[in-house]
């Protein structure tokens, strides 16, 4: 609270309201667990936490450090609850679980949850979406300033989740301006310069797959890079293997990516992965009129078609 802003008793902070909500959900048995964030290894970092007990509710926080998408952790939690297939000792994805999990969702995470439901990956009644308005995450790179926000947050037009069961705090005003401005700016560069930019970015990649594993939409049981018969991609950390990995990942998340920025934030070496995804998001929206994470009913754009789709590029 900034001094002098208000003399009246300060309203409850977003985090306090969040804790109250979580406590209520657990107490009233509306949820068996709450997946949220707790303070991490430093005051600038938050880490995912699974709250099972009312007494642990006070660990929950929500602020501009809560960058990681909780969706992969939600999926992991649900998977763990399904138990292991006794024969293969691996979690059985087809098993059922009656676990109801409340999950803290900022705008982008809410969209990711919607998209998961749309893609049949998540049952709507299995999650209690605890929506929070989000003012953006602090730049996860080494910028010392709290003012600067992540690239995906700067262009974000969905600070509030489109679907929620409970909303905590006040909705955040939607930003204006062209969310694809950065893409347009980049496209002004000549082809060779764009290539040079990507070459330089992807030279940093060490193939740790943090981007993939932190991505709410990367949920393939076996990623193409892990397939060995055939071995699609060399395993070296050299280009073009790295380039192909990121290209295929972008193509596979095209029309599904919610631009949450989890991949960029996860990257330990600061590869700017989001730009290509954003361009494909634009393409899918303009060409097919589809935006990911807004409807649980609509078929994802790349899984369907229209006879009227433009085909100016086909000979």
């Amino acid at each position: 609270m900034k001094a002098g802003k208000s003399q009246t008793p300060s309203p409850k902070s977003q985090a306090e309201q969040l804790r109250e909500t979580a406590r209520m959900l657990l107490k009233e048995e509306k949820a068996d667990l709450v997946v949220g964030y707790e303070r991490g290894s430093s005051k600038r970092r938050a880490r995912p936490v699974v709250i099972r007990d009312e007494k642990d509710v006070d660990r929950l926080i929500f602020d501009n450090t809560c960058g990681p998408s909780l969706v992969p952790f939600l999926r992991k939690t649900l998977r763990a609850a399904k138990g292991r297939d006794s024969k293969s000792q691996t979690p059985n994805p087809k098993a059922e679980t009656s676990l109801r999990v409340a999950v803290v969702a900022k705008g982008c995470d809410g969209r990711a949850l919607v998209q998961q439901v749309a893609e049949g990956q998540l049952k709507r009644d299995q999650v209690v979406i605890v929506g929070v308005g989000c003012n953006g995450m602090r730049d996860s790179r080494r910028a010392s300033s709290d003012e600067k926000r992540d690239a995906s947050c700067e262009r974000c037009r969905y600070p509030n989740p489109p679907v929620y069961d409970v909303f905590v705090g006040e909705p955040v005003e939607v930003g204006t301006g062209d969310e694809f401005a950065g893409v347009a700016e980049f496209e002004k560069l000549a082809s060779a310069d764009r290539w040079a930019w990507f070459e330089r970015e992807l030279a940093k990649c060490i193939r740790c797959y943090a981007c993939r594993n932190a991505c709410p939409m990367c949920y393939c049981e076996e990623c193409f890079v892990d397939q060995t018969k055939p071995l699609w991609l060399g395993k070296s950390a050299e280009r073009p293997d790295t380039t192909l990995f990121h290209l295929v990942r972008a193509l596979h998340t095209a029309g599904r990516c919610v631009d949450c920025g989890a991949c960029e934030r996860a990257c330990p070496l600061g590869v700017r992965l989001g730009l290509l995804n954003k361009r494909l998001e634009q393409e899918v929206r303009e060409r097919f009129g589809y935006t990911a994470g807004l409807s649980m009913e609509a078929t994802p754009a790349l899984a369907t078609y229209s006879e009227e789709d433009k085909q100016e590029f086909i000979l």
Partner: protein
Amino acid sequence: MSSSLRIAKPDLDQLVSALTSRYQLFGPVDVDGVTVLREVKSADELALGAALDGPVKAAFFPQTETLLTYDGTTSEAPPGRDKPTAVIGVRPCDARSLLLLDKVFGTGKYRDPLWQRRHDDSLVIGLGCSAPLETCFCNSMGSGPFDAEGSDIMLTDIGDAFVAESCTDKGERFLKTAYKSQVQRPSQADLDKAGQARSKALAALAPAADYSGVKTALAKLWESALWDEIALGCLSCGACAYLCPTCHCFDVQDETAPGTQQGRRVRIWDTCQASLFTKEASGHNPRPGSKERMRQRVMHKFSYFVDNFGETACVGCGRCIRLCPADFDVRQVLERVKAEGRRTKDEERGTKKDVRHAG
């Protein structure tokens, strides 16, 4: 006998050119706000003082390295080195990590020729760590921000200059030959500043944690539910292993140029967190889940490595915390292991008492 000298920052290039004339030199370089280890030719490329994000092992054990080249059925080992390798500006934790890796690659029944090619006759110029981070815990791992172990020469930043001290004969010889004539000795004021930097760094670190009981505790935690629990907070990516200065597991792959029989057999950093790591051709996987893989990682560093080499395979650099996308904190794991260890110990004691009573 160790000698010390003063290197004014504008004169650092002299040191760097002395190094590059004899060595292939690697140092911290800033790439868009991330510090990675790269080959350097001049002092102005260096980002000295920044915490290195990439691991120092890259200079001696590159992520992708050719084991042999082949053409048809004939193969050939890669050529020898032109120059030995030197690194400059690495923190003491990183310098120390090289000693641990040398135990793996440089000792035992088989020596690793590729490691030796780079590591033998190498020179390590450490930079005292004057700004430990919140994630640093070198002091809990038996080291410290100015620990000389692993460095041949140690630099201390005193503002406008570095104090350079030799820590080994090799370092001493290098300084002598590189600075034949124009040696500038540090003044008492310089040495005082260096001393202040040291105490400031020590004060900035959190008090050392006692992890001495971890290995014993781990021995009893094979089946513990702890692994299930902590695995939930892990995304099973390879960031920690690849950035860890002591992780050394690798994969071997053949890469053939399309349409030819020419190619190379390369080794590539690998991570025990990937399911493919132990998956056999038959499909059987002895470590099927993230629980088993997480356990392997912790056990390898804090138990198996101790069994095999007498030391913990962790130098407390904190990269695996700082750069983890899930902010997974190995220190917390160690604390929990300790606590679990105490608990099982108490239980055992309890059981024994019960037995005695019953008897």
